[in-house]
C-alpha cells in the first residue's frame, strides 16, 4: 500500500444536510501540486448510478477546498462549491432520458464523495480512491411530521414543521405527470411552512372513477389546511409548477373559497379556457397537440401548443383580478411551456388592470422548464408520460446545465424570501372575533 496515498484526508461539512444547504468539500494532506479528482456517486431509488467529478490541483499546503478552488475540467469547471451535486448525471452506459426524483423523502439521499489520484474521467468503478466519505442530503428536517391526508377524498400529504405553530400554510402542486410528489413540500416544511403536496391528476378518486377532479377538490384541500389547528388559516399560499401553475392561477383568481396570501408560479402559463374545468383545460392543450415539434434528437417540444398567446380574454386567466402577490419563475430556454411569453403577457395584463405592483418576475436565461430545488441535477430532456398521453415520450425541457443550476439556486432563495415576506411578515394582526 502506497504510504503517501494513505495520508490524504477528505472531509465534507456538514456530512448531513438539507437538500438546499451548501457543504464544504475539503481535501488535506495531499502532495502539494498533485493532481486529484474529486468524484460524487449516487445510486438513486430506481437503481441507476449518477456521478459527477472535478479535476483539481492541490495547493502548496496540499489542500483543495472545493468552495474556493477551481475545477479545471469535469462535469463542472471553475469554482463550484456544489458542483458535485448539481452536475450529477447518469454514468456512461445508462438508459437515456433519466431524471432524478426522490419518492421516499423520509430517508436521505446518500452520496459517496471520493478523491482519486490523477485526473480521471472514466472507469472510476475500477479505481481505488485515496479516500471517501458518505454524505446525507435530507428533504425533511428533524421533527418535521409527515401526515397522509385522505379527508374529503383528497390524495395528499401534509408536512408540518416542528414546533407548536401555528404555521402559514402552503398548497404544493406539480404538473401534468400527476402522482403525489412530496419532496418540495417536505423541504418547504423544513423552512417553517405547513405544506400540503396534492395529487390532483391521479388521485384515488380519479383512478377509481375515471373522472377528473375540479375546483372543489382544491377548495377541500384549502379548507383542510385552513382548519388544521397548527395552521394559521389566514396565511395560505399556493405554489405550482407547469400545469400546477394553471391550477394555481385558476384558484387564486376564480375560487370563492380559496383566499391566497401569495402565489408562486413556476414554468407555467395563464393561457387556459376561463371557466373551464380541469378536464376542459387539459383538453384545450390536447387539441393543440398537433403543434408539437421534434428536434434532431426526436425530443418533443411542446412550448408551441399555447402559442401564440391569445388575445381573446376568454382564453387567459384574468390576472388583472389577482388580489395577492404573485411570483413568476421563468426559464427562458423552457421548451415545454411558453413561460417567458406568458410572463410578458401577464405583465401587460396586470399593468393595464393596475395591479402590477403585485407581480414579481424572475426570468433566467438558458434555464429550462424543470426549475427544482437547488442542486437537483438538471435534466435537459427525459422520458415523460402525461395523464392524457398514455405512452412515454422523450420530452425536451430545455436549459443549459450551468445556468439552469444557478437559476435553481437563485430562484429557491427568492421563493423562500417571497413566501416568508408574505406569510410571516405581518406582525400587526387585526383583532376580530365572531364568538
Amino acid at each position, binding site marked *: *500500500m*502506497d*504510504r*503517501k496515498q*494513505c*495520508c490524504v*484526508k*477528505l*472531509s465534507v*461539512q*456538514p*456530512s*448531513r*444536510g438539507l437538500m438546499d*444547504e451548501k457543504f464544504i468539500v475539503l481535501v488535506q*494532506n495531499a*502532495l502539494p501540486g498533485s493532481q486529484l479528482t474529486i468524484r460524487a456517486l449516487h445510486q438513486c431509488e430506481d437503481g441507476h448510478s449518477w456521478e459527477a467529478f472535478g479535476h483539481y490541483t492541490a495547493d502548496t499546503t496540499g489542500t483543495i477546498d472545493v468552495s474556493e478552488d477551481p475545477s479545471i475540467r469535469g462535469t463542472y469547471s471553475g469554482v463550484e462549491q456544489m458542483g458535485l451535486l448539481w452536475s450529477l448525471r447518469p454514468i456512461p452506459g445508462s438508459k437515456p432520458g433519466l431524471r432524478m426524483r426522490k419518492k421516499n423523502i423520509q430517508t*436521505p439521499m*446518500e452520496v*459517496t464523495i471520493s478523491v482519486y489520484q490523477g485526473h480521471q474521467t472514466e472507469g472510476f468503478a475500477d479505481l*481505488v*480512491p*485515496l*479516500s*471517501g*466519505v*458518505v*454524505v446525507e442530503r*435530507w428533504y425533511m*428536517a*428533524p*421533527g418535521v411530521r409527515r401526515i397522509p391526508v385522505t379527508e374529503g377524498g383528497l390524495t395528499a400529504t401534509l408536512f408540518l*414543521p*416542528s*414546533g*407548536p*405553530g*401555528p*404555521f402559514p400554510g402552503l398548497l404544493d402542486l406539480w404538473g401534468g405527470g400527476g402522482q403525489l410528489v412530496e419532496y418540495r413540500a417536505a423541504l418547504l416544511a*423544513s423552512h*417553517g411552512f405547513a405544506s400540503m403536496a396534492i395529487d390532483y391528476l391521479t388521485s384515488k378518486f380519479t383512478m377509481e372513477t375515471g373522472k377528473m377532479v375540479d375546483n372543489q377538490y382544491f377548495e377541500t384541500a384549502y379548507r383542510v389546511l385552513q*382548519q*388544521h*389547528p397548527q395552521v*394559521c*388559516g*389566514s*396565511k395560505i399560499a399556493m405554489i405550482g409548477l407547469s400545469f400546477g401553475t394553471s391550477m394555481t392561477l385558476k384558484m387564486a383568481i376564480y375560487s370563492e*373559497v380559496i383566499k391566497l396570501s401569495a402565489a408562486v408560479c413556476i414554468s407555467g402559463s395563464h393561457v387556459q379556457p376561463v371557466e373551464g374545468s380541469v378536464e376542459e383545460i387539459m383538453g384545450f392543450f390536447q387539441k393543440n397537440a398537433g403543434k408539437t415539434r421534434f428536434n434532431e434528437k426526436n425530443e418533443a417540444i411542446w412550448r408551441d401548443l399555447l402559442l401564440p398567446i391569445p388575445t381573446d380574454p376568454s382564453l387567459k386567466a384574468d390576472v388583472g383580478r389577482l388580489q395577492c402577490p404573485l411570483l413568476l419563475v421563468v426559464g427562458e430556454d423552457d421548451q415545454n411551456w411558453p413561460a417567458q411569453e406568458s410572463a410578458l403577457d401577464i405583465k401587460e395584463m396586470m399593468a393595464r388592470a393596475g395591479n402590477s405592483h403585485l407581480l414579481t418576475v424572475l426570468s433566467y436565461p438558458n434555464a429550462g422548464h424543470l426549475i427544482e430545488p437547488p442542486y437537483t441535477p438538471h435534466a435537459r430532456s427525459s422520458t415523460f408520460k402525461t395523464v392524457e398521453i398514455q405512452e412515454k415520450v422523450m420530452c425536451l425541457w430545455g436549459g443549459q446545465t450551468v445556468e439552469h443550476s444557478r437559476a435553481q439556486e437563485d430562484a429557491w432563495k427568492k421563493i423562500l424570501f417571497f413566501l*416568508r415576506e408574505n*406569510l*410571516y*411578515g405581518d*406582525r400587526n*394582526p*387585526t*383583532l*376580530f372575533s*365572531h*364568538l
Partner: protein
Amino acid sequence: MSVLRCFSFSRGALWCVTRPHLQECTPTSRRLLSAMTQVVPPILSVTPCRALVDEKFKVLVENLPPGCPVTVRSLHHSEDKDDWEAYGHYVSDHSGVVSVSEDLSYGGTYTGKEPMGLLWSMRPVPGSRPGLRLRKMNVCTPMLVTISVHSGHEGFRDQAPLASVLTERWYMAPGIRRININEQGVQGTLFIPPGPGPFPGLLDMWGGGGGLLESRAALLASHGYVSLALDYLGFDQESENLEFKYFETAFNIIKDHPQVMPDRVGIFGLSLGSLVAVTLAAYSTIVKPCCIVCISCNHYYPARGSTVTSKFEGVTRQLSKARVNEDNQVIWKDVALEFITDPSNIAEVGRINCPTLLVNGCDDQNWPTVETAEDVARLMREAGKEHLLSRLAYPDTGHLIEPPFSPHFRATTFVMRSSKEKVILLWGGQTKPHSDAQEDSWRKILSFLQFHLYCGPNLKAKI
C-alpha cells in the same frame, strides 16, 4: 369554538382570534372547525439541524417584535429518562432578531456571547435526581435536542413555547461501520470510517467507572481513525501478564485490521484508561503505540505484581479514607496524592518512546492530575524524552474532560466496583472554564492525532 393559541409578548396585548367557517356551520364543519389566530409566530432556526456532536450550530430567532425579551431554551430527554436543559435570556434587536451566536445572554444557565451555551451548560431540570451524568450509550442514533423560544425571562416556563425545532447531534458520521468485537478474549466495539482506507488506528479507553462507552471512539472514527472502544473492567484477571496481554491483543486487533496502517496506531485514555496507555507505552515489548493521548493522567503503578484493574481495586479500598466535603461529595485527590509521592508506586514513564499528549484540569478533585503531569514531565525530562511530551492544563477544569459541548458534571454518583456502594464523587471544575477546556483540548487533540497518525515523519514524497 375553542381558542387554541394565545401569545403574549411583553409589549403587546393578548392577541387571540377565532373566525367562523366561511360557509354555513354544519355540525360536521363545526366539528372540523378550529380556531385560527392572526398572530404570526417567530421563526426559529438551528443550522445545521443535523450535526456531529463536536460541530457548532447557529441558533437564530427572527420575526419577533423589536426589543422583545425572550428565553431560548434547549431540552434533551436522556436515555436514562432524565430531562436536561439549558437556557439563555435575550432581547431581540431593532429588526426583531436574536442570534445566539452573536448576541449576549443576560442570564440563564450561561451568560455572555456563547454560541454553544445551549449545549454545554445543560444540567438536569429542577427536581431531578441528584448526581446525574449524561452519557449516550447507543451511538447509532443521534442525541435529540429541542431548541425552543419562550416569551419573557422570569417564569418563561409557565407558558408554551412560541416556536421550537428539533436538532440532531450525532456521534457517528454517515457511512461509519460499527462492529462488535469479541475475539481472542477481547471485548469492545470497533468503528471504521467509510472509504477504502487504510486508516490510522486508536485504542480508546475510558476510566474506572466501567461499562463500555462508545461515544468517543465513534466520534474519532468520524474524524478518520479506526477506533476500538475497549471494555476492560469487566474481567477477573489473575495475573499481570494475562492482563497486559489483554491490552496488547486489543491493540493488535486494530493493528492487524486490513484497513489499518500498522505503524500508525495510537492509544487514547482517560483517567484509568490513561494509566493503561502510559504503561503499555512504557513497558510493553509487544506493542509500540505511534502516539498516546492521556486525559486526566494517572501513572499510579505500584509493585509490578498486580494488574491495572486490581491496582484500581486496591486504590479504591484505600480511598475509603478519602475526604468528604460539606455536600457529601467524595474527594479522592488528596488521598491519591499520598500514594503517588512514593516513587516506587509510579510507572517508569521515562521509558516511553512515542509522542505523548497530557491533558488535565487544574481543579481536578478526583485524581492529582496536576501533580501527575508535573511528575511525568520531570521523569521524561530526566530520561531525555522531553521532546516527546506535550501538555495542556486548564484552570478551573475538572477530571472528566470530554468531547466539546458535553455538559459539565462537577460531581456525579459513582458505584464502587468492589463494594457496590454508591457515592457521589467530586470531579471538580466550574462549568464555563471546563467547557472551554473541552472545546480547546478536543481541537488540539485532533490536531495532535492528525499530525502523528496522518502525516508523520515517515511520509516519503514521491515525484
